């Protein structure tokens, strides 16, 4: 695709053409030639959407809850973009992306744009592809962007980090779910939701979660009040946030909510908690902090990929990884020596550059 065609594509996207938006997301997902310029052109138009990440174990009810949330936002007159990330087969790379099935409220409505993505081996990582897709939806003018992903593994954690607010979904009854939270997901949640709250064991799961969140909050400092209760979001945090100093009230206590996604119970509370969190981020200046650390992470990731590409090209020039691997396996050389050899041109270029700067 030529640069002119790309410019036209971006123009159409900004005009709200759904097909241009869909095409753009394909471009960033496939990293097809010139996609970087497209993202660059879009970037200036981003930053207005409120981005919510929803994660949780398979079957927790993410898609159904997201559907309800979308309906809620639509009733409020807001437009919503959804990115649903599904796992793909590690063997064939194929995937059945089924989230659309559970998103009934989205159909026949131009104010909702649902895009399924497979968690396939994206060159350069799923999180980059998702973050760029979020930018496309943001630039296209959607008020809300919801990113939905299975909460398992670093990949997914990175994905939801592209959001302003991360909602972690848990289903009642299984201790395993809460167990999973210990492994890193607990730290990234801004709002916790026990879905299927009409099932047995919901109260127990809520209690377990609150206890764990308190432990998390208790690390390094003692806390008064704000025990991560449901009502915490309504307690007029705004006024006293400023005068009571940094540590106490500046800290966000993640609420634990209960929902029944299939009936829509608790969805309004969830939407409220998401907005409370966003307000909190704004008032405490953390929105900016998050944006900055997100930007830093994105730049780092890009740099890593780009240098990896450079090295990969050099590797191909020298006969590919197989030839090298053969020599290492035969004990003719060792991995470190090979890596040093391959990196030598890069190192040399950098040394030259430094010498030039120094003189």
């Amino acid at each position: 695709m030529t640069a002119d065609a790309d410019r036209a594509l971006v123009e159409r996207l900004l005009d709200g053409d759904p097909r241009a938006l869909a095409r753009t997301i394909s471009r960033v997902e496939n990293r097809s030639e010139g996609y970087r310029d497209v993202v660059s052109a879009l970037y200036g138009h981003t930053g207005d959407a409120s981005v919510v990440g929803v994660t949780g174990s398979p079957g927790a009810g993410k898609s159904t809850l997201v559907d309800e949330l979308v309906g809620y936002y639509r009733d409020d007159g807001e437009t919503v973009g959804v990115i649903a990330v599904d796992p793909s087969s590690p063997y064939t790379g194929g995937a059945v992306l089924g989230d659309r099935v559970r998103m009934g409220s989205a159909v026949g409505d131009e104010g909702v744009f649902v895009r399924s993505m497979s968690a396939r081996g994206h060159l350069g990582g799923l999180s980059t592809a998702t973050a760029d897709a979020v930018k496309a939806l943001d630039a296209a003018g959607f008020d809300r962007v919801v990113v939905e992903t299975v909460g398992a593994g670093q990949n997914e954690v990175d994905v939801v980090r592209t959001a302003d607010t991360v909602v972690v979904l848990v289903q009642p009854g299984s201790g395993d779910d809460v167990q999973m939270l210990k492994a890193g997901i607990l730290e990234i949640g801004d709002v916790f939701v026990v879905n299927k709250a009409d099932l047995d064991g919901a109260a127990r799961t809520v209690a377990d979660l609150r206890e764990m969140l308190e432990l998390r909050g208790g690390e390094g400092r003692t806390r008064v009040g704000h025990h991560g209760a449901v009502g915490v979001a309504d307690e007029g945090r705004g006024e006293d946030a400023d005068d009571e100093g940094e540590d106490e009230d500046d800290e966000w206590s993640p609420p634990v909510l209960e929902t029944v996604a299939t009936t829509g119970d608790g969805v309004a509370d969830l939407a409220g908690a998401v907005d409370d969190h966003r307000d909190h981020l704004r008032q405490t200046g953390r929105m900016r902090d998050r944006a900055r650390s997100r930007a830093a992470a994105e730049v780092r990731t890009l740099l890593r990929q780009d240098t990896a590409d450079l090295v990969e090209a050099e590797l191909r020039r020298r006969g590919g990884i197989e030839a090298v691997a053969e020599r290492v396996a035969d004990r003719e050389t060792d991995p470190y020596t090979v890596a040093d050899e391959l990196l030598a041109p890069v190192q040399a270029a950098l040394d030259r550059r430094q010498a030039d700067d120094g003189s």
Partner: protein
Amino acid sequence: MSAEQDQAESERDRPIRCLVAKVGLDGHDRGAHVISRAFRDAGFEVIYSGLHRAPEDIVQAAVQEDVDVVGISILSGAHNTLVPKVVEGLAEYGALADTLVLLGGIVPDGDAKQLKEAGVAEVFGPGTPMSETVQFVRENVPTRR
């Protein structure tokens, strides 16, 4: 890295995206499930529409998901009413040229001929081997400009 090389690489790395669609009042989704699975095993990305969708829903999903293939499964006999609506909808968005529209189900030969004239690439009846459908998709998927 040359531009051509880049291009070739991205061509190869992009999986074929398919929308498997059930339209109208037709609850028989076994075929749609089986074909979804076969496509997945062939390495395609499959988006399944779910049951009882209106043609407009299918068009919307096809456009938003930017699929290469729309596979419509109809066992209710309403193909002459529903399929043209999907085809027309895709054309309205300017997406028809880039989309391979397939039809699966029980479709009489006469109807199949007509639907093919209207823009359906191929009609697959009962008993079609999965490999045949997969092969057809591979060979006929539109190349993007």
